[in-house]
């Protein structure tokens, strides 16, 4: 690499990187590349479990992410909750973070409810304060909140009449951007199966829970969402996003390699006493 190139890279590396990443993201958006996505075993495991649920089974979904995590987790949640509605199960939506309820409404606005009716097929209980204390409280008594998010009495909602204890839920799907420790501490052993939608950044930390069986399966963000959409045969936003990642990630790897080449050259020149 000659001196001029090195000088330009050192002085304008940030601007070059920003432009390169933007081009890398825009190009596949304009020209979809169409790489096939294959589902990983964990996604298939989650899909198969939901596929075997019977109409009327109770499922608990906690939307525990805000708008700052929507692009990462939202597509995955859209896919899995879509599957739940297609299976005609009864869903109770709850949130242990403040931003959960409007994100639940956004999720429901973006999918096909397959004729489901509020109160009869699904209900949004809303925000339960207290973080882990709130989770423990809800796990002990899911009927503690006497009204739903919209102020309706829960004993007038058909879905909630089926809920007597936390163990009545056949499946729990929490979605959160960080590690699952608090959710697993409070719900593991109380609900049969927990399938978590997580941010890919937490992927490494979630593996021990999956290995021990305390987490049945997990969907890592949009990647998991793309795989789930493939299994559902309903390509959506997750598939479009995954399609575009290959080019940009290749670019990222190339930039890191170039950074190392520049570093090596700088080090060797410094060792030789050069500029």
């Amino acid at each position: 690499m000659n001196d001029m190139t090195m000088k330009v890279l050192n002085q304008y590396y940030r601007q070059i990187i920003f432009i390169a990443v933007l081009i890398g993201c825009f190009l596949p958006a304009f020209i979809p590349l169409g790489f096939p996505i294959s589902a990983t075993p964990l996604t298939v495991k989650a899909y198969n479990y939901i596929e075997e649920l019977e109409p009327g089974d109770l499922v608990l979904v906690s939307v525990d992410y805000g708008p700052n995590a929507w692009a990462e987790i939202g597509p995955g949640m859209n896919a899995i909750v879509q599957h739940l509605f297609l299976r005609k199960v009864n869903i109770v939506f709850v949130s242990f973070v403040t931003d959960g309820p409007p994100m639940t409404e956004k999720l429901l606005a973006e999918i096909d409810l397959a004729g489901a009716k509020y109160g009869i097929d699904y209900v949004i209980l809303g925000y339960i304060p207290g973080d882990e204390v709130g989770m423990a409280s809800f796990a002990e008594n899911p009927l503690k909140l006497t009204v739903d998010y919209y102020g309706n009495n829960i004993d007038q909602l058909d879905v909630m009449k089926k809920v007597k204890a936390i163990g009545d839920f056949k499946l729990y799907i929490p979605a959160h951007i960080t590690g699952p420790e608090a959710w697993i501490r409070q719900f593991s052993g109380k609900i049969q199966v927990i399938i978590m939608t997580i941010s890919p950044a937490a992927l490494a930390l979630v593996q021990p829970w999956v290995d021990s069986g305390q987490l049945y399966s997990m969907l890592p963000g949009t990647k998991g969402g793309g795989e789930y959409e493939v299994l559902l045969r309903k390509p959506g936003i997750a598939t479009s996003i995954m399609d575009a990642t290959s080019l940009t990630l290749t670019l990222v790897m190339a930039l890191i390699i170039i950074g190392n080449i520049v570093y090596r050259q700088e080090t060797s020149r410094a060792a030789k006493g050069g500029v």
Partner: protein
Amino acid sequence: MSWTRSKEITSAIFAVFFLVSIGGYYTDIPLIASINTELANWVQIMLNIALGTGFIALFLYHRRKITRKTKGYPFSFIIFAAIAVMFVAMYSGPEVRGWLYGEVFTAMTTSVICFALFYEVSGAYRAFRIRNFDALLLMVSGFIMIINFAPLYQSVFPAFGAIPAWILGVPSMGASRGILIGVAIGTIAIAIRILLGYEKAYTG
């Protein structure tokens, strides 16, 4: 009223809440279970009220900015206006709520979060250099996981699906297990230290 300042009171409050929640889990005594449920309810109420402290802090900061006409103070008016707009919108019905929060606010927040990637990549370009064996392990593992998120490589070489799965499922998982167990032990240690009065962060 000097007793209100005493550290013993706060330590006692901590101890009562801590021991009751432990007792509620490990014992079958109905009295402790019902006290535990009531205390948990109290904590939920306190935590919910505590959400207002963020608003007060923001209000005080921007009020000071406006009164002192510090640089950028006109934006403080915009913040207060936006608070009012969102507050009213949330009571205005599902369509307005869905539009303002679900579409506009979510899109704005996503746009700002995008900076994370740009700065991560530029940081990685500068800092992700192989200076020693540790850095080499970090980079090789990082590259393999990056490939895991690119469908292109897995469609060309199926092994690029199996290798990241092994990394995640074996060496990385072992370390994560160690970290999880360590964090749990650390949490217990912190709790005991607070109970014994060695940690003053929560009790003063």
